[in-house]
């Protein structure tokens, strides 16, 4: 606690001005900034848990046969790793942490539209997370189904699937409530002059994401209840012996879980669209196209779930339609990449930590997205589906993409909220190690997949051994970078140099309020007279 005291003493703002301290002032606070930080610590904690599990998985795969654990343990670990990373880290991830922290200020509001609903979202998240954790240590033990819970296996296995799935069900409600809150906030609480054309792109991306959260999440909730019913009541909806259909489960699952990848990636694209113009001192290139492509991705992305099922036995007509639509959604993502790169042209570029993370996002996301084209084409997907190629692909998009954007956001916005900053040099070293380690790990995994090594594979044939060794060594470099980055952030934010004003020259509203922002955000109601990337208009150097 003493550490927090020193910070608040030095920093003031919302840390002090309510006069309340202690744990209760956080877990019962309705201030969007406090809720944002609660979320930040929660999701970051689960990221570290998930990353540790991921490193253990890689350690087991270092050599063929048993390295450090048995097959049943491995299967439980990759399931828990997947569930933690997807449902506890990346889906709440950027919207609930940085979205909560920054979005209301960016639109000139004092808080979100429903502050108490916001607190309820966090509580539902905490309860859901507790239920998932309970599942690991009770009953038949940690689920071993993979994060996709495919039937009939998930209906038969003796592990604690029902409880885990119930936890995910609760987490779904947390996500829906955040979505409703954000859509309402963005519609109703924009300050005078903050019209839709002046909305920062981060806000646009949260807006698109929120709609996906509202519309898609109920479907996974129902699907998971059906899995519980299958296990507990023996309803047989997915059991072919009783007129059910296991393929139907996959459709229901992916009708949510494909759009969910946009819940994961869109806010990250929003973060990058904020950082690149500021560190290039140039307006974002193609504001309208980037905003519009977020909406296009959210809408068209709802229609492509079947690309996870080309080999399932689904009809060839369905394969054709889903493959076609999948290629169509690739276009708006490409447009964004071209616009980000063009923003750099003839700017004045400063390569500080947030910018390095943002630029590596563009590169890693491009690699992930381009490898997605291999998966979208029907002929090539058949070969690499369910192999380590897919594992590499989604780590590129989710970790190289969203993960790196998350860390970029942390380096960009957290000093603003803590009033202290991290050291630049360790930040660069941490970033460099992560970037190198990341590529060594996951590019190698993609090669393994093309060579034919299936995913969720505890053991493998000797021909795959050398590359697995390389990938595991890569994961150590990645881990070293992560540790340096986290320690540097932690020490900097609590004990580092004071951080004041607007050193990077951002033109969005959060840079115009005191550091750290007061509980009410603005001393008087702001009136917005310039665009989010109009650096001249905002009067920054």
């Amino acid at each position, binding site marked *: 606690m003493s550490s927090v005291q020193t910070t608040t003493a030095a920093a003031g703002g919302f840390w002090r001005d309510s006069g309340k301290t202690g744990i209760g002032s956080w877990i019962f606070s309705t201030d969007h900034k406090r809720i944002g930080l609660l979320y930040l610590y929660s999701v970051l904690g689960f990221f570290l848990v998930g990353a540790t599990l991921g490193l253990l998985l890689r350690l087991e795969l270092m050599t063929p046969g048993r390295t450090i654990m048995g097959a049943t343990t491995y299967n439980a670990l990759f399931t828990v790793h997947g569930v933690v990373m997807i449902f506890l880290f990346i889906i709440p991830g950027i919207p609930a942490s940085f979205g909560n922290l920054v979005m209301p200020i960016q639109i000139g509001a004092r808080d979100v539209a429903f502050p108490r609903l916001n607190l309820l979202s966090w509580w539902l998240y905490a309860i859901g997370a507790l239920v998932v954790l309970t599942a690991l240590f009770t009953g038949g033990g940690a689920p071993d189904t993979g994060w996709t819970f495919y039937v*009939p296996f998930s209906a038969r296995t003796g592990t604690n699937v029902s409880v885990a799935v119930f936890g995910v069900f609760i987490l779904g409600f947390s996500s829906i409530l955040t979505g409703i809150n954000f859509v309402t906030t963005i519609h109703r609480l924009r300050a005078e002059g903050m019209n839709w054309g002046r909305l920062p792109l981060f806000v646009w991306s949260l807006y698109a994401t929120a709609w996906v959260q509202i519309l898609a999440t109920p479907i996974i909730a129902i699907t998971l209840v059906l899995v519980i019913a299958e296990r507990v009541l023996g309803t047989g909806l997915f059991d072919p012996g009783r007129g059910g259909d296991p393929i139907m489960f996959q459709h229901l699952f992916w009708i949510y879980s494909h759009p969910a990848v946009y819940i994961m990636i869109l806010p990250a694209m929003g973060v990058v669209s904020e950082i690149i113009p500021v560190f290039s001192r140039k307006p974002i290139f193609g504001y309208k*196209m980037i905003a519009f492509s977020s909406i296009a991705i959210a809408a068209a992305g709802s229609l492509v779930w079947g690309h996870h099922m080309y080999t399932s036995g689904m009809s060839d007509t369905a394969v054709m339609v889903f493959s076609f639509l999948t*290629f169509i959604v690739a276009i708006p993502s490409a447009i964004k990449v071209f616009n980000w*790169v063009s923003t*750099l042209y*003839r700017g*004045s*570029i400063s390569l500080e930590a947030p910018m390095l993370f943002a630029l590596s996002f563009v590169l890693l996301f491009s690699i992930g997205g381009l490898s997605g084209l291999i998966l979208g084409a029907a002929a090539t997907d058949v070969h690499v589906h369910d192999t380590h190629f897919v594992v590499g692909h989604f780590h590129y998009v989710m970790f190289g993409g969203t993960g790196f954007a998350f860390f970029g956001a942390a380096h960009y916005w957290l000093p603003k909220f803590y009033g202290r900053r991290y050291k630049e040099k360790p930040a660069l070293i941490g970033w460099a190690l992560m970037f190198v380690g990341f590529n060594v790990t996951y590019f190698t995994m993609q090669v393994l997949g093309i060579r*034919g090594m299936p995913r969720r594979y505890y053991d493998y*044939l000797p021909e795959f051994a050398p590359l697995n060794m390389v990938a595991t060594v890569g994961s150590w470099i990645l881990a070293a970078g992560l540790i340096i980055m986290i320690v540097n952030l932690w020490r900097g934010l609590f004990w580092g140099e004071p951080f004041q004003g607007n050193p990077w020259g951002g033109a969005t509203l959060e840079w115009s309020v005191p550091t750290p922002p007061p509980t009410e955000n603005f001393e008087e109601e702001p009136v917005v007279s310039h665009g989010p990337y109009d650096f001249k208009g905002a009067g920054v150097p």
Partner: protein
Amino acid sequence: MDNQLLTTTQAVDPVFLFIFAACLLLLIGITAAMVWFVIRYHRSRAPEPTSQAEGSLWLEIAWTALPTLLVLAMFYYGWSGYLTLRSVPPGALPITAVGRMWSWSFQYQNGKTSAKLYVPVGKPIQVNVESRDVLHGFYIPAFRIKRDAVPGMKNHVWFVATRPGSYDIFCSQYCGTSHSGMISTVEAIPADKFAAWLNEGPKGAPHPGLALLEKHGCLGCHSVDGSQKVGPTLKGVFGSKVPVTRGGKPSVVLADEAYLRESILAPTAAVVEGFPPIMPVTADLSEADLKVIVDYLKGLK
């Protein structure tokens, strides 16, 4: 073999090459532009931005239209390759692949079964993929084919081995503890040898119980030669004293006929010490088959 026949590998690999080449070009372009801009317009060289351009309609149109054409080409190419994978050449030899936790068993038209997939070189093979329990995936990387084995559903793939040899078969769809051990091979042998193999009777007439163990997938987890796999070996079980956990309590039982029958019919009632309680119930096991199996196990010393 019909010389015009396009193999599955030949249908898929050019699509790979095309998409890889296009992706590589794009990636190099994006990376080069980024690196160049970052160096050229670094603040040390460019203290002030020299442009405040907010966009360009022509550029937006260009980089919407060109990728659209490119991805449509990829879609079309990928789809036509997929059609080859789906169109079984006429006259293909049908073989059924049955997946179960955690082994494959192959059934030929004349009723013969085997644990490896024997095929004649040069003849197209249609593999009908079935599952007896959960989802599995029938995957032969060398032929670029994969199809899920779904209980209650008939799926198929086809391939042709143009050269004799041995090719890996993996299970691609996660199916539990020994998913990664659910491996077999395609053994491609000359047509005359294949015909001889197919029609040869059981060698030295082994016990029919062994064939049943193979047919029901028991050998995926249990050996008959004393080596340990996912489950305990079946060699010498009968008449031995087995440490088990029953209803949570450890005890030692004599493996008599009743114990063998119980272990097969209700696998999780008494679980051998040191093994996970994962053995599935064999659904399609008749009383007659069970008798033969138990008889075989009694003699397996």
